[in-house]
């Protein structure tokens, strides 16, 4: 064999290496690997963490980009003030909430990353093994806030320990244009049958209802889970294991959804995320959509800056509660929760920051910066001034008091499988496949059943 490397030989070797590298890099999982089971220890606050009393250290807080930017500004100000006072360098990172699961998964595997993470739903119970027990924080906060809504416990507690702290709840109501409804002789609907008739009228008038059916964390599941439940459908039985989605009730709900979309909704909703319906409503293209109070808030803010359209939208908008179906008027329980990761080097400081944020003066100040966009998860905050001074905000508080909040995986327990189904958008996609015409309603229910069986096993 010749020891001389020719240009051709070199290029062949280098070319093979380059192509192989590109191939392997592309074929390697885009996702980060999970920790080995043996590495997952029950979370305990690491004693090495310096107490805040001694000051120093740093904290990073990964949270969402709030639909009401003023709440982010206020949170940043409050955490900075706390950091300055306690000599802790606090960095708050706001990202799209749909991107938080990936960041969290990477952080868990790498055992480094944000000390505190904010997310929705029961993520704390699902990640209980990698979260610090914050029962001490919660007990103090519960005492100061007069106790939380009972249902928050199943979102935050695992193995008898609080794993996350509840920050707030939003959604479950519809914003609608009172002037356009009046012009067309319709009123806020109380049932889904009325809802469809009103939507049809408004669509004929060129101002349809709009509803997201895309892949996004809030409005799509917030609308379609309750729609399913209100018509008797459910993804799983009480045992939390037996998939029950493929039922006559589910098929009926899907048929109704297809009819509803065709008769009364804007077609673009199939591609909408949680912000697209806000933009469409604010642009006066649609006359109603499921929403927290973010549209109402933004319209008010822009109206104050002299925007005429925003002023018209704000003055002529109101909210109505979730309509009722044959099986009631459920809403999707949920809310936003923050936990401390067990790899944090500054657990005591993280706990102290949460204590500060959850104390009534701070908590109320933050809530009020959103003017009702988030509702506090303690009955005490039903008396928040905004809910008394603005009757248009009343449906949000009524929601919390109604007791109609059902959870992911209902009527089974709030489980890891239910959370995975939610994150895979299976229920939303079941409706989307039928609405888009890709599958017939019965086939969409069968499709969902197949998908759910892969998760509930």
């Amino acid at each position: 064999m010749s020891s001389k490397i020719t240009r051709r030989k070199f290029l062949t070797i280098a070319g093979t290496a380059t192509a192989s590298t590109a191939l392997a890099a592309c074929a390697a999982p885009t996702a980060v690997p999970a920790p080995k089971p043996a590495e997952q220890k029950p979370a305990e606050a690491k004693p090495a963490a310096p107490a805040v009393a001694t000051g120093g250290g740093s904290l990073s807080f990964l949270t969402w980009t709030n639909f009401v930017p003023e709440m982010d500004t206020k949170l940043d100000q409050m955490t900075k003030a706390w950091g300055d006072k306690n000599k802790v360098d606090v960095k708050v990172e706001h990202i799209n909430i749909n991107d938080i699961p990936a960041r969290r998964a990477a952080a868990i595997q790498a055992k480094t990353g944000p000390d505190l993470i904010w997310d929705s739903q029961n993520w704390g119970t699902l990640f209980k093994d990698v979260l610090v027990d914050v029962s001490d924080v919660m007990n103090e906060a519960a005492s100061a806030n007069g106790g939380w809504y009972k249902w928050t416990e199943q979102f935050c507690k695992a193995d008898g320990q609080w794993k996350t702290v509840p920050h707030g709840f939003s959604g479950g109501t519809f914003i609608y244009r009172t002037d356009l409804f009046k012009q067309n002789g319709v009123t806020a609907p109380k049932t889904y049958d009325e809802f469809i008739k009103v939507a049809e009228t408004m669509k004929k008038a060129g101002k349809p209802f709009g509803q997201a059916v895309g892949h996004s964390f809030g409005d799509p599941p917030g609308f379609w889970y309750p729609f399913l439940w209100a018509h008797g459908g459910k993804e799983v039985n009480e045992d939390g294991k037996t998939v029950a989605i493929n039922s006559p009730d589910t098929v009926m709900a899907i048929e109704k959804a297809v009819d509803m979309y065709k008769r009364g909704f804007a077609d673009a909703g199939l591609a909408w995320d949680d912000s697209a319906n806000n933009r469409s409503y604010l642009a006066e293209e649609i006359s109603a959509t499921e929403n927290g109070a973010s549209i109402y808030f933004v319209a008010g803010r822009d109206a104050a800056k002299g925007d005429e359209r925003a002023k018209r939208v704000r003055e002529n908008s109101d909210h109505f509660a979730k309509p009722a179906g044959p099986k009631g008027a459920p809403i999707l329980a949920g809310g936003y929760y923050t936990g401390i990761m067990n790899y944090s080097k500054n657990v005591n400081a993280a706990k102290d920051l949460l204590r500060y944020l959850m104390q009534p003066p701070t908590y109320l100040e933050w809530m009020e910066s959103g003017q009702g966009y988030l509702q506090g998860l303690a009955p005490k905050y039903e008396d928040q001034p905004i809910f008394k001074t603005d009757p248009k905000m009343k449906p949000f508080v009524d929601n919390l008091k109604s007791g109609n909040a059902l959870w992911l995986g209902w009527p089974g327990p709030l489980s890891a499988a239910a959370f995975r189904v939610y994150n895979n958008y299976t229920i939303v996609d079941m409706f989307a496949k039928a609405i888009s015409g890709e599958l017939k309603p019965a086939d969409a229910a069968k499709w969902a059943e197949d998908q759910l069986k892969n998760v509930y096993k």
Partner: protein
Amino acid sequence: MTRRDQVPRNRIAEFFDREDVLGYTLLIPVAILLGIFVGYPFIYGVWLALTDTRIADSTSGNFVGLENFERLLFRDSIFIQALKNSFFYTAVTTVFKFVLGLLMAAVLNLKFRGNRYVRSATLLPWIIPTVLSTLAWRWMFDGSFSVFNWMLRQVGIVGPSWLGSWPWPFISIMIVNIWRGMPFFGVSFLAGMQTISQELYEAAMIDGSTAWQRFWYITLPLLRPVIIVVLLLSTILTFADFQIVYALTGGGPANQTHLLATYSYQIGLRGLEIGVGAAISLFLFPVLAVIVFLTLLSLRRDD
């Protein structure tokens, strides 16, 4: 034998004077880096694909053999859709990128005023971060504020719901991929064209050839090695495309635009079933490996 020959340093020098030894020695650092950053993740990915590992689930991580692949192939219609999408997406966009890239290279190879500026400008889609440009496209495809639909409205046409109604979402992601990938083809082909001797063209012209004949019988055959390499890289990268779909449609509506990479992300990171996510990622590896092997074989034969 001189004293100098007896010095061990010279034996080392002689050893490294052999080109094969020196060549492989110089490759060692790169091989180590590749082993750490590509080899290890790849092997770990293979292992994960054979387990039921779920993120933050201490009861998972058990070896399940090919069960994940069996589930994907026989019990997961979204995966089948993503698989079909990946092939269709790669095939269609590659054809368009190839044809348009060739056209672009042919034009840029001409001598005209401002030639250099135009060449630089055509690279912009390739240079701009994908997510950034895709967000701009998303705005242009927006259901309420699409600039395309606004233009269509000016001439009395109601535009489609670009990201909402089938098949427009899939067409939309392909448009963005072609727009972004075409400059890579164009510039690579241009570089290849510039190495072709002008004498060949002059001789052909003297023989009375047409422009098409010169392109078909001179340009295209001599570009063949470049074309093969560009097609190979583009095929691999397009199969593994993630950013455009993620930023534009998130795989929706109703999973209609998922590619294997985005579906892997959804199942592995959002759905936390990282073992299944790894299986999705690795699914095409054997197919692509064969493509790479055959392409490189073809290149060697050319040599």
